[in-house]
């Protein structure tokens, strides 16, 4: 095996049982680290396959209902703003880059950069969720707009405020909800609630995955801080990265299917 010169990380702790990467040995039932890495990677890819299959059900439902009720879908989609969707796409793509970069950083012992990139990836995840909840879900569900939402300027001010002026109410905008809760007064299609059902289910489950991914990255970040990952052992970083790329990939398919149809 090639030897790697070990630079000490500016790590904050190694006392609490954390094994530094250059001393890491594989779990006892693996013959060596390489075999363990391969095994974990195979397991992760299988898990990603199950995730794709999980979403495949949603994509099937999307296809079926779009074929059955094309008008409902184009009409419903017209209420989505492609700019928010596009911005979120960019946010996730950038985060995928920083995630991949952090793996490279760990392999090259650039721990400060690795930590920055992991934090930046998490920040992107948070930004994605904020955009989704503040600028997309909330106004469509309830008619309440976040005060910084540029779309507010296109609507007449109803004068209603909430949370100390943080949210402004727009008359006749909310009610774009799934199933029987759909009560949007200007709806032109009887099946539009199905579109919203698919939209909320698909993006909601995707958002859950974003949150899980951020949790994984946070866990990896703490382990990088403890100096547990390095050139000869970076399994966790790589796996979190694979998971995060999947989250990105699913969105790459959701974005055009939801926002760019007409």
């Amino acid at each position, binding site marked *: 095996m090639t030897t790697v010169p070990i630079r000490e990380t500016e790590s904050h702790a190694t006392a609490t049982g954390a094994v530094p990467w250059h001393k890491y040995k594989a*779990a*006892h*039932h*693996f*013959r060596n680290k390489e*075999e363990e890495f*391969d*095994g*974990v990677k*195979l*397991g992760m890819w*299988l*898990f990603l*396959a*199950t*995730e794709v*299959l*999980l*979403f*495949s*059900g*949603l994509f*099937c*439902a999307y296809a*079926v*209902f779009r074929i*059955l*009720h094309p008008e409902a879908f184009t009409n419903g989609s017209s209420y989505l703003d492609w700019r928010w969707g596009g911005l979120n796409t960019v946010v996730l793509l950038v985060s995928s880059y920083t995630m991949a970069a952090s793996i490279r950083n760990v392999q090259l012992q650039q721990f400060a950069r690795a930590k920055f990139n992991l934090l930046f990836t998490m920040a992107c995840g948070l930004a994605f969720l904020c955009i989704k909840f503040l600028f997309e879900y909330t106004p469509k569900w309830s008619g309440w707009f976040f005060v910084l939402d540029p779309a507010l300027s296109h609507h007449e001010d109803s004068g209603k405020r909430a949370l100390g002026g943080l949210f402004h109410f727009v008359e006749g905008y909310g009610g774009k909800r*799934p*199933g*029987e*809760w759909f009560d949007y007064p200007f709806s032109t299609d*009887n*099946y539009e*609630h*199905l579109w919203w*059902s*698919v939209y*909320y*289910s698909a993006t909601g*489950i995707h958002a859950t995955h974003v949150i899980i991914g951020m949790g994984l990255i946070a866990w990896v970040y703490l382990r990088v801080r403890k100096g547990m990952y390095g050139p000869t052992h970076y399994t966790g970083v790589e796996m979190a990265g694979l998971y995060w790329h999947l989250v990105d990939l699913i969105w790459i398919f959701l974005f055009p299917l939801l926002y760019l149809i007409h």
Partner: protein
Amino acid sequence: MATIDDRNADTLGSAAGHGHDEGSYLTPRGGLITTIWDWATTVDHKKIGVMYLAAVLMMFFFGGVAALAVRTELFSPVREVPGEGITGQWLGSFLGNPDASIAENNNLYNRAFTLHGAIMVFMVIIPSVPAALGNFFLPIMIGAKDVAFPRLNLLSWYIYVTGSIFGIMSILMGGVDTGWTFYTPYSTTTDADQMRVVYMVLAAFILGFSSILTGLNFVVTTHKLRAPGMGWFDMPLFVWAVYATSILQVLATPVIGITLLLLVFERLFRVGIFDPGLGGDPVLFQHFFWFYSHPVVYVMILPGMAVINEIIPVHSHKKIFGYRSMAFASLGIAAVSFLVWGHHMFTSTGELAATVFSALTFLVAVPTAVKVFNWLGTLYKGSISMTPPMVYALMFLFLFTIGGLTGLPLATLSTDMHLHDSYFVVAHFHYVMMGGTIIAFIGGLHHWWPKMFGRMYNERAAIVFALVQFVGFNVTFFTQFILGTRGMPRRYASYVDEFQTLHQISTFGSYILAIGFTGSLAVFVHSLLAGKKAPQNPWGGLTLEWHVESPPSTHNFHKEPIVHHGPYDFDTILPPGWDPKDYPVPNAHEQAEAYAKAQHSHVGSSHH
């Protein structure tokens, strides 16, 4: 067979773990509390397998009680007799409400068969062989110290328990009457103000997660942790079939995951994807449901076949017939299983689709028949020992063949129109699921019990109870074939008077079956309390688990085993002129020498 190198001679030679400092995996390492904590936090695949076994047997008991309740209710039809009022309401009276109306009684009946179906499918049959026996033996059979992800393995056990708790909560809250298939729109509207349907659906969703993680673990274990010298075609066929099962679990279960999740959304958030009242499509639910639930039929039967793959060659002391075709048949069944979900929906899909699905369904018969013929070919001219595992294997062959052949009229469109949703279907899948998987599971338990717990059991009593089960099973379910062809529909609490005799025979059969299972349980309990100490290799098997102590040590092997021969090479390993009674004969050194000689004489033809 796998023999092991000289390096390992001490493992092989010594009988049962005397003198090893490690002790067996069952040796307690402290007081009661320590031991319980030790088990609750263990990452040892053997302990996890035993924990699965305990959980599965407990759920089997609950599911069995529900089945007996269903059969008892069906002992007589519910009817109004002038002057006597309503008769035949056994469930209503039993649960303390003799004045229940017919509707209330029928409601109880619906909950009882849903309870039976959901428990038996999701909590018993699916985890029975893979999670209990597979966890214990798959790593040992490939010469590994553990599964690839031991902590994930423990997690899947806890997920299984959590799922079961959700199911039990749902039952305690009053139960579910949807049937285990949760068909919409009924499942989205029944008990609309209650959470118990949601809990039961979540239970199935959570159990699915456990199943995915176990499958994933086994796939990686099989790929990465095989001992040196064990190529893909040197693996025991148990491992092949469990591997095929694991692939199915990984690829099919996520689809039921999203389906059940959408069903929960449907009930909680009224999303309307499956509810026709909201513009949704109930047939879409059926497609999603069966896309998983048909492959899962093979998740249930393939592990049963896996067990039979081991029992038949070992107890007839003969090399398995058609090793490769067995391995490929497992994979073939797994592959075809994804293409036949539509045969559950002949009455709700278009004619063309139904025709295509019918044709594809017949394909399943090919690899399945290959397996049955190979088992028969193995028995032919073998030195068969009529041990309890062998008796179960023969029962399996008999019952599974009936179950398989009665599948053909159900796959044929014209006959299915008559038999659809009748007792014929009920009898068919009980012959496959119970006569197949459960019987194989119990047979496997008899086969590996000495290895798992280090104790022999009373073989004669075990055979007697096996036969009681065989008789009880056929009395219970063969009558249901007849009932079905005469038009008895499934899932009804009452029936016309003409069916009563057959229903009563079936009910008596279920009681005989219950006696048989109770007897088997007694045999095992007796074995734990007073069984003779088991030798290392009581049946004369050649796969790796018979080369470790009974019960195995914590790390299974004292040194990494090196595999020299196929798992069923009885002809090259056994000394010439051996007698089955001489077991356990060949010790490791003799085996290794015999192998070396055989190798020598086949140098030209020896493979890579």
